[in-house]
């Protein structure tokens, strides 16, 4: 009897969604189960539909939100909101019109469900194991934390999905990242993913779907897993995935849009068959020891330029890119960055804006004050998280400490809505990209965990958070 070839999680989800197999001449046609859209990467796709007289094929599989260009200062209704510039306002208006015209569900300004696109999918229970999920946004990889195959696409492809619910795809390779041991107190999922990107480089995952596994991952919260998968794209990976397990099901069971009753039982049965089979083969394998990790920070202008919070900036001679990066950051090789004065702290973004992230920061800020020299923004990932945080008094802790408590959105992660870091200013940010000018022209960004960001806000310089964690 011939044995069935063991398959990886990715291979199972891929195979289940093939409308037609790839050949040398043609890519595969892949069916998409959930399409998330936001205001920045969709207008040209809707124009394409209009120009070609096309409709949206499966209206119930596309969900819209507004997050990138939207203000984070309180708004009562759309007429009064202050949007950063006429173009951004036009973009938001276009999004509303497009969703209305094509009959798509949109979480508008007055919706309690509005939030960052990658935060609301899981929060609503739309993100589920085994689904194919796409969005015109690279951090779509976040949803892989539930065992979904989720990846970012361009605007032309947004048009393809709207019109056909399908995408043309070549099958990517697989990379397993096994994390042995467990994270020490004060070291979080953010530190782990920064360490991984530091190890494999910002192009280390290019062409691959990564699957995270091992003790440190199975004992990690869903929020932590989302942080990990979110930043897979920063290593260049097509997607990041984690096998669904009891933590996944527990997270999903009471979510508003997750399957109910018999549908739940059926789904659960299907989901339980998804984890990679014993003996399944990956194209590449990487192992990392979690026991050894310290809180991590970035020092350069890409997320692969990473050091332990107490370590010196490396010395790298004859590397033009390295010199350019540290010149931009105004730091020197060999220098340690703890005690470096900072100007801004940003807690937010689809990487670290969930309730547990805010709680982590609040634990440190409780009954303390941030430095007078620091401006601090706390921006919840969704309006629901905002409400939940307020219900347990986190907003008061932040405000009392001297931080600003805002409405949900991308905010200072990319500074499109006017929340920016001024030229030359140094920011410690829980977001995912420290590219030149990412948080505003000339801004300098240090990526870190919520704990490190909070501790740094108190001290007014880059700080090892373990000083504040008992």
């Amino acid at each position, binding site marked *: 009897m011939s044995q069935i070839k063991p398959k990886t999680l990715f291979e199972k989800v891929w195979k289940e969604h093939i*409308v*037609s197999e790839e050949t040398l*001449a*043609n*890519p595969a*046609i892949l*069916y998409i189960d*959930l399409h998330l859209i936001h205001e920045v*990467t969709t207008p*040209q796709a809707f*124009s394409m539909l209009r120009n*070609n007289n096309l409709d949206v094929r499966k209206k*119930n*599989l596309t969900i819209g939100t507004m997050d*990138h*260009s939207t203000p984070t200062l309180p708004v009562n209704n759309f007429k009064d909101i202050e949007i950063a510039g006429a*173009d*951004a306002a*036009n*973009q938001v208006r276009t999004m509303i019109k497009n969703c209305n015209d094509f009959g798509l569900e949109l979480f508008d300004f007055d919706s309690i469900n509005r939030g960052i696109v990658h935060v609301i999918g899981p929060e609503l229970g739309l993100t589920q194991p085994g689904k194919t999920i796409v969005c*015109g*946004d*690279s951090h*779509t990889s976040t949803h892989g934390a539930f065992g979904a195959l989720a*990846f*970012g*696409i*361009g605007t*032309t*492809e947004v048009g*393809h999905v709207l*019109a*056909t619910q*399908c995408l*043309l795809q*070549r099958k*990517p390779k697989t990379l397993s990242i096994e994390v042995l041991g467990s994270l020490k107190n004060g070291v979080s999922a953010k530190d782990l993913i920064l360490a991984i990107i530091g190890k494999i480089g*910002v*192009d280390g995952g*290019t*062409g691959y779907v990564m699957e995270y596994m091992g003790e440190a991952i199975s004992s990690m919260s869903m929020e932590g897993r989302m942080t990990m998968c979110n930043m897979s794209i920063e290593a*260049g990976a097509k997607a990041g995935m984690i096998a669904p397990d009891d933590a996944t099901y527990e997270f999903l069971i009471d979510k508003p*849009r997750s399957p109910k009753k018999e549908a739940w039982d059926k*789904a659960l049965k*299907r989901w339980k068959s998804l984890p990679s089979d014993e003996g399944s083969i990956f194209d590449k394998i990487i192992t990392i020891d979690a026991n050894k990790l310290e809180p991590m920070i970035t020092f350069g202008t*890409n997320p*692969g330029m990473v050091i332990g919070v107490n370590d010196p900036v490396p010395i790298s001679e004859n590397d*033009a*890119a390295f010199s*350019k990066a540290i010149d931009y950051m105004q730091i020197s090789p060999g220098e340690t960055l703890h005690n470096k004065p900072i100007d801004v702290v940003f807690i937010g973004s689809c990487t670290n804006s969930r309730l547990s992230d805010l709680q982590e920061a609040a634990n440190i800020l409780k009954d303390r004050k941030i430095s007078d020299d620091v401006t601090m923004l706390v921006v919840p990932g969704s309006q629901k998280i905002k409400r939940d945080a307020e219900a347990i008094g986190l907003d008061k802790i932040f405000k009392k400490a001297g931080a600003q408590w805002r409405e949900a959105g991308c905010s200072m992660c*990319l*500074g*499109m809505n006017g929340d920016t870091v001024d030229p030359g200013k140094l920011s410690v940010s829980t977001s995912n*990209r420290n*590219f*030149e*000018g*990412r948080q505003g*022209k*000339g801004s300098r960004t240090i990526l870190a965990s919520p704990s490190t960001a909070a501790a740094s806000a108190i001290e007014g310089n880059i700080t090892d958070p373990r000083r504040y964690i008992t």
Partner: protein
Amino acid sequence: MEGLKQIKSRTLVLPNKDIDTDQIIPARFLTTTSKNGLGKHLFHDWRYHDNGEKNTDFILNKNQNETFEILVAGNNFGCGSSREHAPWALTDYGFKAVISSKIADIFKSNSLKNGLLPIVVNDEVLEELINNPNIELSISIENSTITFPDKKVISYEIDEFSKYCIIEGIDQLGFIQRNNEAILKFEEKREWTPR
């Protein structure tokens, strides 16, 4: 999108590695609802000083009277966001090909849908191109080859389907639509329905 068979141009070289999409076009220029006119923001923060004046040291400003259709860039070009505004800005400026030793996945896929040819060469070839800027290359898309000024010819790899689409200027949507029967069948026989 027009079909593209041959590109003949001098190269513009940006040797930096890991050039991300935020450098190709910064986020604050993404508030547009059209694809057009983004060339003026291409590499904006490298091209212009904070006061809005041109940075005359930046390569794109040095060779203003020449048109370049081929961009040579350091390893891992186009990493970062999925914004299709990046290839839109490059093509609007006039580029038809980008050559690097690694090109980020989403950027590559976006480029192929906009008549911008992403060519991946090995480290050695890239080094040669970086060390010899502003040389005239002839790229044949049909033969998947690059011809150097000294007549040296190297071949590069490109997915057959993408090659066909670039040459014919075909929008891939039509290909999916022609498979509508298969999509309907897939939807019908699925064991579960999303949502």
